[in-house]
């Protein structure tokens, strides 16, 4: 014991890295992760890694359709992450985005089915307002209970997901088309009422613009407004917020209305702007992936756009590999997992450095 040696490896805190260095570490992490993915894929399939990546790139961006499809996925993911950002910044654990998106999408689908006779602008207004209000209500309920009775918002928002799923599943059965298919099918395929119009010969353009505008607004909201300041303070310490004269309950409720509303809007975009149908998998797990996006970006909406794009690229590319090499969907999830692992891991090296044991000669020199 007394003769135990100096530890072989120690972790020491860094003083903070310069921005270019941080960027280099993060890019390095992405590169290493791509390398590891290549090796893994090669080991499984025997395909040349370079080919794998060109397949991925062409899978995600190769054709106009694929490019827009990737952008659409990224836009949807960003939109949800933008919605989650204020909630998580307030340290309100909103893991109910999945349900908020779904309920927004369901209302949109309902409007498309029942109000297709309305003039286009009025129909869009109904869809837009309906989805936002529905999402906001899904966010409001847990917030009110938290503000009044200090209930646990994590469980509450999680449970609200199941309410949304059950409701959707009820309406899917009700709106079933064709009869016996157990799906809603494409809504308004004939007249395309309530579909986003084609701009630059794509239907996804409007979604993309909407998300870009939202990200700018959210950035300003969180950073420069009084509301944003209140969110930061409440997130840091409720006691401090009360001391500063803020009404914590009011801030919580207001922020969750916003958070749920934006997530509901994402449901609107998913249905009216992309799938034109509704099913229990319309949100497709994006409500959870968006949590990672929001945290990784440290609630900076522009960084969220980039991370969403990366994830959408990975997903699109990995699907292409899977289909080309006759692997199933899990292969693509594995690739996404490997890459996320490296990106998250790089944060460690940005904050800490490793100190190895000096060689005996060097150590005793002093």
């Amino acid at each position, binding site marked *: 014991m*007394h003769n*135990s040696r100096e530890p072989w490896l120690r972790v020491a805190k860094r003083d903070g890295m310069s921005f270019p260095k941080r960027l280099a570490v993060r890019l390095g992490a992405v590169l290493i992760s791509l390398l590891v993915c290549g090796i893994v894929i090669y080991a499984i399939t025997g395909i040349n890694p370079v080919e794998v990546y060109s397949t991925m790139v062409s899978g995600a961006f190769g054709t106009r359709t694929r490019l827009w499809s990737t952008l659409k996925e990224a836009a949807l993911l960003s939109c949800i992450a933008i919605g989650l950002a204020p909630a998580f910044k307030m340290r309100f654990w909103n893991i109910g985005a999945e349900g908020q998106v779904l309920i927004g999408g369901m209302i949109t689908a309902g409007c498309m089915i029942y109000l297709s006779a309305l003039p286009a602008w009025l129909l869009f207004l109904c869809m837009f307002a309906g989805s936002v209000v529905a999402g906001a209500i899904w966010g409001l309920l847990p917030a009110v209970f938290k503000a009044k009775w200090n209930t646990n918002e994590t469980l509450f928002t999680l449970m609200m997901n199941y309410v949304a799923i059950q409701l959707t599943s009820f309406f899917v059965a009700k709106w079933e088309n064709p009869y016996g298919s157990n799906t809603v099918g494409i809504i308004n395929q004939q007249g395309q009422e309530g579909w986003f119009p084609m701009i630059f010969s794509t239907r996804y353009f409007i979604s993309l613009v909407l998300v870009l505008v939202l990200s700018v607004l959210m950035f300003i909201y969180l950073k420069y407004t009084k509301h944003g300041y209140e969110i*930061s303070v409440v997130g840091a310490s409720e006691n401090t917020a009360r001391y500063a004269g803020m009404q914590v309950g009011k801030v919580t409720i207001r922020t969750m209305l916003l958070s749920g509303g934006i997530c509901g809007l994402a449901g609107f975009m998913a249905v009216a702007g992309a799938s034109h149908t509704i099913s229990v998998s319309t949100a497709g797990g994006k409500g959870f992936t968006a949590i990672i996006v929001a945290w990784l970006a440290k609630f900076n909406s522009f960084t969220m756009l980039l991370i969403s794009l990366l994830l959408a690229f990975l997903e699109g590319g990995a699907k292409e590999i899977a289909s080309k090499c006759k692997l199933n969907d899990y292969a693509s999830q594995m690739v996404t997992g490997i890459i996320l692992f490296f990106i998250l891991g790089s944060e460690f090296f940005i904050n800490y450095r490793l100190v190895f044991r000096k060689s005996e000669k060097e150590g005793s020199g002093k």
Partner: protein
Amino acid sequence: MENIALSLRNVTKRFGSVIANKDVSMDIRKGEILALLGENGSGKTTLMNMLSGIYYPDGGHIELEGERVNIRDPRDAFALGIGMVHQHFKLVDTFTAAENLIIGLDPNKKLDRREIAASIKEICDRYGFIVDPDKKVYEMSVSEKQTLEIVKVLYRGANILILDEPTAVLTPQETEKLFAVIRNMKKDNKTVIIITHKLNEVLEISDRVAILRKGEYIDTVPTAEATAASLTEMMVGEKVDLNIERSEVKDKYVRLAVSHLSCIDEDGIKKLDDVSFEAYSGEILGIAGVSGNGQKELLEAIAGLQPALSGSSVIFTNQEGVDNQLIGKSPSKIRNLGVHLSFVPEDRLGMGLVGSMGMADNMMLKDYKKGHGIFTDRKSPRTLAKQVQDELQVVTPGISTPVSRLSGGNVQKVLVGREIAAAPSVLMTAYAVRGLDINTSYTIYQLLNEQKKKGVAVVYVGEDLDVLMELCDRILVLCGGKVSGILDGRTAKKEELGMLMTGRREAVDA
């Protein structure tokens, strides 16, 4: 030498670009009580953390009884008989005393509660502790938790005990008890190192004093040869005047009239019981009392953060002689009435400031609503932050550096600076100098005196009776949520204050 227990040889520790300890070489003798004295941020805790295995030195090494040792983690430290009681207790709240004692010990050993209880009793009897093995930690008072931490260290067989600022959370009576225990340990030939910056305690308890300044080792001197002034000079690096100024009260009129103030906590227990007093402009009203006797509730009730029972009244009179009732109003309502009430709360980073924000963003905490429309005003808080940084000499890499990264003294300067900048009529401070070094403490006293001269009614909740008696014009003593007496600060006696604090009412009110 034979009687050296522990030696540090050229020990250096860096955190990023900050050098916490630079080339420290010192010896600790067997069976001595060594006081490790130094200003805030002088590296006392870091140095001791290297002995207890929390940190590993970047340079130099440690010798135990002349033999070089590597302390890689707290387990190594315990194996070498070194145990440390940290300033922030490392206890599991929902576990009992006995369960906390055995955490991390041999996992293969059977849990024998009777045996543990017996060892606890044995340790307690030997040194004069009182510990109930079956009491849960969350039911314990601060002093009980500390006792448990010390017993934990002894239970694990420590011969060298390191106590990090042990008296910071104790009342004078509890401190005396702790010192008695420490003397018993010395009799039992244990080595005790006390990290502290309270000079009177150093002089009372220690055999020798080791002084650190800005991460560097200055000297070790026998306590018998040292005086408060000589130690301060070594610690600060220059002569410091230890007298606190107290000017006569001028233009005194009632600023704050508190009458029949009562409030209860969540469990319905009375925290304040029919408290009545007046605070005058241009005076410092001290509030003394054993911690947890209603001081926190009193200040928070006045600030609108604590609901009061009906019948309570706090009347604030402004310069123009207009009265305002503060009870039943929220902090923002109070501010909107034009009541300039500043409050430096006890929990600096948990209530007074936002730790993750920089100085600039913290400056606008109370008046962030002043900006145009929906946007916050970002310019004036930055100007104010720079002004506070210059005037109070806040050491920070920049005004956007999160304040949680600053040392305790600088954090307090930021908080007090902001509250004073709001040009208050009433300034309430709770434990304003707790954990601060001498220089910062005196800066704070001076700031309070400046406010007093400006005609501000200053309410100073303190724990150091010597300071209360030197600084305050009147001293109100709280005991069990009741006012047990109000004394004149110039004539009050320590014994009298002590009696009022513990609730014996023989003393005569001033």
